[in-house]
């Protein structure tokens, strides 16, 4: 059965955006490798910039004076030790935070990762971006230069359009009276207090993820920090001309990341600006609903086959979305079994690849379904001894799944490489294929977060459900390629063919029956438990109980 990207991305615009993203990903993979591709780590870079903002902000707040804000900023820039650079770093880090957040949101949307159980992450992410914008706004008002004054006046104008205040707060900036220091105190309070809310929102944002990667890999972390520090030293951002309520702002430097809306709203009445914000915000917040596939095309959540579930906990450990819980059995047998929470399951299918007895997975994509599919695949075209069969992820792999062959090699599509059951690989090898090349997305860009990581461990590091020892590893190849990296797939195929050519001729077995082993595994698994718990004893794997069980991802 041929799968295609269209199965998930019913909207043309999303397919278009995904295609737009592919060359950028491919270019940056080429330049920085997938391990350090900043586009893949955009979300983690946002968190890194938050950390930088927190450190630099704590330093700066000691020198800020409410009585004379602009003069204190000038003093920070000119007299405080490292003040100029630290203030610039604070500013550039805030800009980088917004850029990285925009890239992250764009990626999630373009990859169709905003709907279903991911709605919470999407909406909380948008609120985070809004909060960052407000934080930036208060930060610039703190400086009280020309830009700060303009932003303050525009903000007040918007707020006055709402029926909230008994007196228009915009009057504070007309020059009728001296600007009260209470205003700057309130502004400083917001600038310091809002990050607390930011932390809470960030927790909410990742709350449905198992093992969220909050910081980028070390190389990218130091690289990004180094670039921002270098920019602050080489091109420090000085405060602008002090604000004067009796002087028109005229030409001044503005931060395009936080003041981008000024040219759009300056001529508009406050109410019209709110309408604009409402429309844009509404479209963004409602994106999970208007961009999701039609109901009939939405992949169903995973289900557990009670008969086959041994309670081994591997699917529970591997699930990247914490959608699986281990509960007491309900089929009359002793022990525990897996249960999928459909409200949290994104139907990634990774559990299908983790289950040795093939007892869990989305309907139509369990290990047994995959075996049936590969049987048909082989029946339709038995692989030749010098053939390298390409097993490719539909989300990446250079898009080779669009055709049934790639460069003469038969192509078998799989929803996510992480959902691939190793018995499929075994079946292909035992069917006489010279080799099997599995092309997954780069681990940092997996549609389902952890697919390639678990796949690699199942193939080479005996992670449950591991590729059996009887399969000749010399015939199994693993490559990572994004949607725009067709060349990488071609190169990996070429390498695979060369390696296969050096091996003895592959033999074909008849009557390969792998799924019958499932029942055996299930029975043995339950016998080994002898009741409640895992295979190593009554308390589960390695003697640990469910409540104190192995930390997710450690096995």
């Amino acid at each position, binding site marked *: 059965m041929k799968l295609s990207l269209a199965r998930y991305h019913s909207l043309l615009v999303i397919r278009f955006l995904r295609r737009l993203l592919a060359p950028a990903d491919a270019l940056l993979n080429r330049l920085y490798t997938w391990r350090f591709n900043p586009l893949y780590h955009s979300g983690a870079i946002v968190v890194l910039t938050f950390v930088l903002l927190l450190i630099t902000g704590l330093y700066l707040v000691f020198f800020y004076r409410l009585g004379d804000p602009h003069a204190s900023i000038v003093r920070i820039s000119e007299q405080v030790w490292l003040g100029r650079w630290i203030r610039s770093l604070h500013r*550039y880090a805030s800009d980088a935070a917004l850029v990285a957040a925009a890239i992250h949101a764009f990626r999630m949307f373009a990859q169709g990762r905003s709907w279903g159980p991911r709605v919470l992450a999407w909406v909380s992410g948008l609120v985070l971006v809004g909060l960052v914008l407000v934080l930036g706004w208060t930060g610039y008002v703190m400086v009280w230069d020309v830009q700060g004054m303009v932003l303050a006046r525009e903000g007040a104008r918007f707020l006055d359009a709402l*029926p909230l205040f*008994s*007196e228009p707060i915009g*009057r504070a900036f007309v020059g*009728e009276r001296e600007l009260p220091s209470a205003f700057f105190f309130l502004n400083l309070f917001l600038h310091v207090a809002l990050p607390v809310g930011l932390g809470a929102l960030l927790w909410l944002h990742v709350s449905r993820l198992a093992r969220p990667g909050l910081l980028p890999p070390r190389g990218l972390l130091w690289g990004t920090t180094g670039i921002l520090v270098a920019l602050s030293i080489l091109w420090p*951002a000085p405060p602008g001309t002090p604000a004067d309520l*009796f002087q*028109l702002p005229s030409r001044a430097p503005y931060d395009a990341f936080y003041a981008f809306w000024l*040219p759009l709203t300056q001529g508009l009445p406050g109410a019209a600006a709110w309408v604009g914000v409402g429309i844009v915000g509404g479209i963004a917040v409602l994106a999970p609903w208007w961009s999701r596939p039609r109901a009939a095309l939405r992949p169903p959540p995973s289900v557990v086959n009670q008969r086959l579930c041994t309670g081994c906990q591997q699917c529970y450990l591997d699930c990247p979305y914490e959608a699986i819980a281990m509960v007491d059995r309900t089929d009359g047998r002793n022990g525990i079994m897996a249960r999928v929470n459909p409200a949290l399951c994104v139907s990634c299918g990774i559990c299908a690849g983790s289950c040795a007895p093939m007892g869990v997975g989305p309907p139509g994509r369990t290990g047994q379904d995959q075996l049936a599919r590969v049987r048909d695949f082989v029946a339709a075209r038995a692989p030749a001894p010098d053939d390298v069969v390409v097993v490719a992820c539909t989300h990446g792999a250079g898009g080779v799944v669009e055709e049934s062959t790639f460069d003469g090699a038969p192509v078998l599509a799989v929803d996510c490489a992480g959902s691939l059951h190793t018995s499929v690989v075994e079946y292909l090898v035992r069917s006489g294929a010279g080799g099997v090349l599995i092309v997954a997305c780069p681990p940092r860009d997996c549609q389902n977060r952890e697919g390639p990581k678990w796949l690699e461990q199942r193939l080479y590091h005996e992670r449950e459900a591991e590729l059996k020892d009887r399969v000749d590893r010399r015939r199994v190849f693993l490559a990572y390629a994004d949607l725009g990296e067709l060349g990488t797939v071609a190169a990996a195929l070429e390498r695979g063919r060369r390696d296969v050519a050096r091996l003895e001729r592959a033999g074909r077995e008849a009557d390969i029956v792998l799924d019958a082993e499932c029942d055996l595994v299930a029975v043995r698994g339950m016998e080994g438990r002898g009741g409640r718990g895992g295979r190593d004893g009554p308390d589960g794997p390695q003697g640990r109980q469910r409540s104190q069980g192995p930390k997710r991802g450690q096995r």
Partner: protein
Amino acid sequence: MRRIGRWVGGAALALGATAALGWLSQVPYDATSEADGLVRLAWRTRGTRVEECRRLTAAELERLPVHMRQVELCEGRILPHRLVVVLDGRTVVDEAVYPSGARADRPLYVYHEFPVKPGWHELDIAFTRDPVPADTAGETERERLGERESAAPPRLTLVRRVLLARDQILLVTYDAAERRLMLKGSEAP
């Protein structure tokens, strides 16, 4: 060779992105779009509250509980003002100014901005309270309590020839202590 090319390409891209970040962080922009000077009218005044009273009829009193029987029933409101602004011989504002608040019991606010070119300008401003209806009491409880000075006079005017320099803002506001309109800030000599 290919490795060196990747290094150079990676460094160039990082440098370009960093430079773009630095430049976009300090883009020169002119937030004033229309003119080189500004006349701003901004003030807040307490309006004059009037009360319209009538005596209840015997039948109406009869319908009320004994403890709520008041012979006279008064309803108050704050009188609106009319603002007329003539700038260089042209009437730029001629509008009624109503008290703010959902129940129209808050002060009156005036806020207008007129972009102008630098140079001399003729300014003629009149802020006139609507006349007190004959059958109302023009004195409020507050005024009776000694806050009479907070209400604006029935008519405020300002007629002045002013000089604006480039980028100057001239503020016309209300001086509550002297109960008159005044110019503030950067009035040119």
